């Protein structure tokens, strides 16, 4: 046992099963009878089977795999959104989990109101948001639209706004562990994406432990120290980025 290095994340023999109910293609009458006799079609899907790995401080771990291989579920388990059925997950330090940056804003509210709403949902107090407010607006480059309702924004503008809010909120938390689920691209124009990528790099290179889930293999190879290839709930391969990615491409 190496005791000198404190591990940031320890995942030990974690399993997760979802009960999924299926709708059979049948008439309303039969559905009703099924319901009365409690014949609800449930199937169990084992999303993760006995997963174990560790993440060290400052390490950037990539997770790749096909759709439905359990990547997002694994992140949600580490983030504490889901609970594991078996096994144990230990985290040391502050965890921030990011997914779907392009959702979350309320179209009927103005940009200013959205910044306050999303900021408080992400755990900032009103005072903190006020302090960060100018920074967020400046970064998004949408100062002229600050009191416009978001439903009148173009989709690029919404992406820029959401990305700016999220990235600054994360920065405020100064997390020890950062879980990123397909959030690298900002969805703005070329200039903004460049700025966004720089900001992301700054964030993941600031010494936090990062788990990066992405289908973008170039991205994974560029940033990660280690990569896990997940398939049907198992770790198929873990190791150096080049090796795992070439193994992934072969399959």
């Amino acid at each position, binding site marked *: 046992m190496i005791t000198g290095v404190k591990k940031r994340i320890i995942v030990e023999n974690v399993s997760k099963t*979802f009960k999924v109910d299926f709708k059979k293609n049948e008439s309303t009458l039969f559905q009703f009878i099924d319901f009365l006799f409690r014949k609800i079609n449930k199937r169990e899907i084992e999303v993760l089977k006995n997963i174990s790995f560790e993440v060290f401080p400052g390490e950037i771990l990539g997770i790749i795999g096909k759709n439905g291989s359990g990547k997002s579920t694994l992140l*949600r388990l580490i*983030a*504490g*959104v*889901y*609970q594991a059925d078996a096994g144990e997950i230990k985290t040391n330090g502050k*965890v921030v*989990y*990011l*997914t*779907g940056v392009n*959702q*979350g804003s*309320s179209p*009927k*509210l103005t940009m200013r*109101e959205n910044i*306050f*709403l999303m900021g*408080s*949902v*992400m*755990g900032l*107090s*009103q005072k903190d948001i006020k302090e960060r407010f100018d920074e967020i607006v400046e970064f998004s480059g949408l100062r002229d639209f600050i009191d416009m*309702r978001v439903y009148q924004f173009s989709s690029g503008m919404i992406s820029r706004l959401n990305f700016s809010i999220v990235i600054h909120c994360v920065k405020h938390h100064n997390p020890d562990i950062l879980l990123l689920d397909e959030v690298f691209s900002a969805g703005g124009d070329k200039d903004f994406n460049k700025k966004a990528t720089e900001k992301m790099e700054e964030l993941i290179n600031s010494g936090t432990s990062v788990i990066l889930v992405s289908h973008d293999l170039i991205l994974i190879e560029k940033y990660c120290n280690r990569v896990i290839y997940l398939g049907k709930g198992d770790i198929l391969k873990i190791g150096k980025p080049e090796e795992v990615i070439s193994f992934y491409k072969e399959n």
Partner: protein
Amino acid sequence: MKLVLKYWPRVKDILGLSFSLAKANFKVRNEGSYLGIFWYLLEPLAFFAILLFIRKAIWQSNVSDYPVYLFIGLIMFNFFIAVTNFSTRVIQNNSGFIKSLRIDKEAFVISGLLQFMFSHFFEFLILVFVAVFLHINVLWLIFYFFVFFLFCLFTIGVSFVLSVIGVYASDLKNVWSVFVRLLWFATPIFYMVESDSLLQKISMWNPLYHFINITRDIVIFHKLPSLNTVFFAISSSILVFIIGLLIFEKNKNKLAEKI
């Protein structure tokens, strides 16, 4: 005391988040409406007027200050309906946040309470006006805040339970709205109960009746409630609050994967 100090920062965070959510919800609700927040005055007033008219047209009132009697029952019950109905779907409606963030889910339920507290404040203002108009001593209304505090505890306890059940069965929304309608007629809001009638015996088991009745006694008759009633109100609200909170805490970690 130690326990309170230990949990206080978390409670403060939850309340802060609830407040922001309530504020945003409140703005969204009034968006695109011409009269905006005036509806919070107009809606209860219109309903109040309808009931007063029916009362005048159909049967003669034998209670002095009937309008105040009616209005107190109306606004307190309205508050209960609004908050509990809101809570039956609140977890699903915020599934985006709940699935993608580790967030204190209590805040979503509490935000409903805060949001409707705000509209309740408008209704309270009308109550003050009605009372002044009928020459009722307004100072007694101060006691309402104590009753309302207990009433909130009771309401939020019920809401916690409803929000959990609502995740597992979306039928709850329909069932609950029928149930509260039944409860509306079963609670003496626009009518009075005679003592020793069947209705009164039923009402004794209806916590809403007690909260409304205490308020009426204080505001209209300037009569402080008996110790028994006070004890019942305090214990039932605290009990319901604790039970509701415990049920919510026990289930909250499973909610994210059900929506």
